[in-house]
């Protein structure tokens, strides 16, 4: 196996690594789903969590 072939195979293995979820035509990696889920959680928390106030100001 040439160096180029080995490097290409390694790159292909790297590109295909990771866990994917499939739902019909939708395909998404678990990592991306976690990032999107975290953004939704941050959005909801930003709406419901109380914002700290400066007690020295009226």
């Amino acid at each position: 196996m040439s160096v180029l072939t080995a490097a290409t195979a390694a790159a292909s293995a790297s590109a295909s690594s990771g866990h994917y979820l499939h739902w019909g035509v939708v395909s998404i990696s678990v990592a991306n789903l976690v990032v999107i889920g975290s953004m939704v959680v941050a959005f909801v928390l930003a709406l419901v969590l109380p914002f700290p106030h400066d007690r020295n100001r009226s």
Partner: protein
Amino acid sequence: MSAGAATAPPSSWTARARRRIVGLVPEGQALPDRQPTYVASWIYVFGVLTVAAFLVVLGSGGLLAVGGSAWWHTTSLGHFVNSVHLWSVELFFAAMVVHLWGKFWMAAWRGRRTLTWVIGVVAFVASIGTAFTGYLSQSNFDSQWIGAEGKDGINAIGVGAFFNVLNPGQMLLWHVVLLPLAVGALTVWHVVLVRRHGVVPPLDAKEAE
């Protein structure tokens, strides 16, 4: 010299530029220290979080420019700076999208803020283009694969003759010069418009409550 001439505003280009710059935002609104009560919510934090992440992106990108596009392949420091660049971009986009969601659901284009909304959308699209050219500048097999996959789409929209995704030198220069300048200018324009018209109130609040 007549009295009228003495009181007339100077007409030199510097005086006109000064009046234009001073008039961009109402007095005291360029860097305000007080905001309407409705701004006391975490949802209003994500715009400035986006700007903060953008500054880290620019700083880490500047350090990467010192070492060169292949620096991160050969040294642990280069790899660390590259990782800071990647994760600050991730935070930049995450904060910007949450900012977008918040502004969409409070209809932030109300009160003569249409241009503010539109400039934000254009800045979002320009940021995506900047990120794509970053993926093309990784100098590895991933960037080669992305370039090969993207060329047909770029050619299909008719810009492949002068925007060649298979040319890593051209993509790197778009990524480190032209597109950051565009995103930076759009960001400044967006922030000036926010300061000019004020932060949009919630749907059930009165203006400047």
